[in-house]
């Protein structure tokens, strides 16, 4: 305790220098926390976009469907699956879909598409396609066999609202299924993949078209947040003891997003590393200065019987004190900035073009403050400060009292 209070007093002996160091640590840490907050928010947004564009947080199929999709691999026991899904905490919505591929054709042209048979009331709770409809509406009932298509596909097929569209598929019994649909809605999500390759039809129409009876292809689940996914997958696996079903989190369905996030994280770590190097040079400078300044003082202490180990301890504790104050400042500033932009959002309209690949995108990013972020950043700062302090501490402890006392 004696050494700690001595160290604490030493820290405040040269107020201006110490405050500058504290600010350097604090601002560095604050920037780090904020940057991580932006990255976290951006990642959440990216996940949320792709999840709400089509794939949901969790998908359940017949085992082997993801590996090799086929219209014959239908979901085993949907009522049981539904019961398991309903038991999940933090459930936002779920939808049972029929998915297949086929040929969409008009009098003008034809092209291959993915066909999504959905129940609009259910699908609304999971995906946001209804928000990006540019003309017409979402599978309005009342029209015989409505179809909702993307803008790109509409252009390719030269189809507009009210036009006839034929879907030709290979049905579950191997026969050719063909049916006439009417375009009742056109959507623009911003993702060429969705806009040019997906058609939405009613689930019951899809079941007729694919000769499926009342079977479905997949159940898709949306949770309150992407963070709930691992827990929910485990819960589903526990409650749905079936070897013939597969339960897939979004990152298996869409590994691209996961890889993008990992790449982005790598960039973040490089930047964080640079910041810590800069901070540590600042701290090193301060500590070296204060050691040189106090050469005589250390000499006297040692002449009076202070052991080298105690000198090391003293210097380390000074550094720790500086670090601790800096930590407080940094966490306060960083959290404040992150929380502010978590509410206000950062407008990234200028880089929106690059964001289109991730699905339906808004151009505002909301930062996010996580405990992991605060804890890791704080630990990193303290470790850096202590490691950097080792060198001046070692130097101070190696002084020869007889020379040090005479040092001018």
């Amino acid at each position, binding site marked *: 305790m004696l050494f700690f209070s001595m160290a604490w007093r030493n820290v405040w002996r040269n107020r201006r220098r110490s405050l500058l160091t504290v600010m350097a640590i604090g601002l560095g840490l604050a920037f780090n926390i904020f940057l991580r907050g932006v990255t976290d928010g951006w990642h959440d947004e990216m996940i949320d976009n792709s999840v709400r564009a089509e794939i949901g947080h969790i998908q359940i199929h017949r085992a082997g469907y993801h590996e090799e999709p086929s219209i014959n691999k239908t979901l085993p026991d949907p009522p049981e699956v539904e019961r398991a899904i309903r038991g999940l905490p933090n459930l936002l919505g779920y939808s049972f879909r029929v998915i297949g591929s086929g040929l969409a054709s008009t009098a003008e*042209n034809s092209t291959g598409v993915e066909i999504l048979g959905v129940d609009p009331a259910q699908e609304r709770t999971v995906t946001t396609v209804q928000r990006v409809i540019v003309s017409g509406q979402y599978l309005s009932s009342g029209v015989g066999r409505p179809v909702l298509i993307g803008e790109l596909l509409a252009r390719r097929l030269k189809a507009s609202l009210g036009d006839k569209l034929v879907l030709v598929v290979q049905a*579950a*019994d191997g*026969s*050719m299924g*063909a049916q006439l649909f009417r375009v009742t809605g056109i959507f623009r999500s911003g993702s060429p993949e969705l806009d040019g390759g997906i058609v939405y039809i009613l689930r019951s129409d899809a079941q007729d078209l694919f000769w499926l009876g009342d079977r479905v292809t997949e159940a898709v689940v949306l949770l309150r947040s992407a963070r709930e996914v691992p827990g929910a997958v485990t819960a589903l696996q526990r409650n749905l003891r079936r070897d013939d079903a597969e339960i897939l989190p979004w990152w298996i369905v869409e590994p691209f997003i996961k890889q993008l996030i990992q790449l982005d994280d790598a960039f973040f770590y490089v930047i964080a590393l640079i910041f810590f190097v800069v901070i540590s040079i600042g701290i090193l400078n301060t500590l070296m200065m204060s050691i040189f300044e106090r050469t005589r003082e250390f000499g006297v202490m040692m002449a009076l019987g202070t052991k080298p180990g105690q000198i090391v301890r003293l210097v380390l504790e000074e550094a720790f004190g500086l670090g601790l104050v800096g930590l407080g400042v940094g966490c306060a500033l960083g959290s404040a900035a992150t929380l502010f932009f978590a509410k206000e959002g950062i407008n990234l309209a200028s880089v929106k073009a690059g964001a289109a690949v991730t699905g339906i995108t808004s151009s505002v990013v909301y930062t996010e403050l996580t405990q992991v972020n605060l804890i890791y950043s704080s630990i990193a700062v303290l470790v850096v400060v202590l490691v950097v302090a080792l060198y001046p501490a070692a130097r101070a402890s190696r002084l020869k009292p007889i020379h040090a006392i005479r040092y001018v």
Partner: protein
Amino acid sequence: MTVKTPDWQRTLQMRYWALNPNKTFIRVTAPAKEAGTGTLRLGTNMWNYLPSVEQTIKIPPSLMLESWMGSDFTNDDLVRESSIVTDYSHRIDGETMEGGDPCYRIVSTAKPNAPVVWDRIILYVRQSDAIPRREEYLDSKGKVQKVLTLGDIRETSGRLYPMRWKMISVNKQGHETVLQFTKLALDRPIPNSVFTQENLRRPF
């Protein structure tokens, strides 16, 4: 035509008119669910007619490699045959036994810039009368993708002809398609009006 997959098996009956080298017309006659479905090919253009929606659909080039009527034959298989002479160079590569007959093994390699799907086709042709017994289709990596075996060689209209064609997709386990001709007439004149879109839209 019988198509077998691990999930289902079905048999279609159909009538087939061909005027070589490049006109083909196919009409499905059974089962009732698909009767009337038709395919017309003129050169490299292809149309399908679907009676359930009373629509003719032009098969775009991007779908040429898709399955024809759910079988192991692709749309391209129906179109391609005419070009094997012009788009490939051929060479005899030894003699083997195939289906119990001594055969020549002929390696046909795609000519540079030829607009074809298969890089190489290996033909096994019976030595006695030049009737093909087996054809292997190889992709650009030299891997066999499809194997066509021809059998049930009978004399029809004064000529020997393989009446049973079996197509296997190598990379799809358990998928095979057997085409069995029940009646075959060769060298019969066919009016040109058969090979028209009007005829395609007029089932029976």
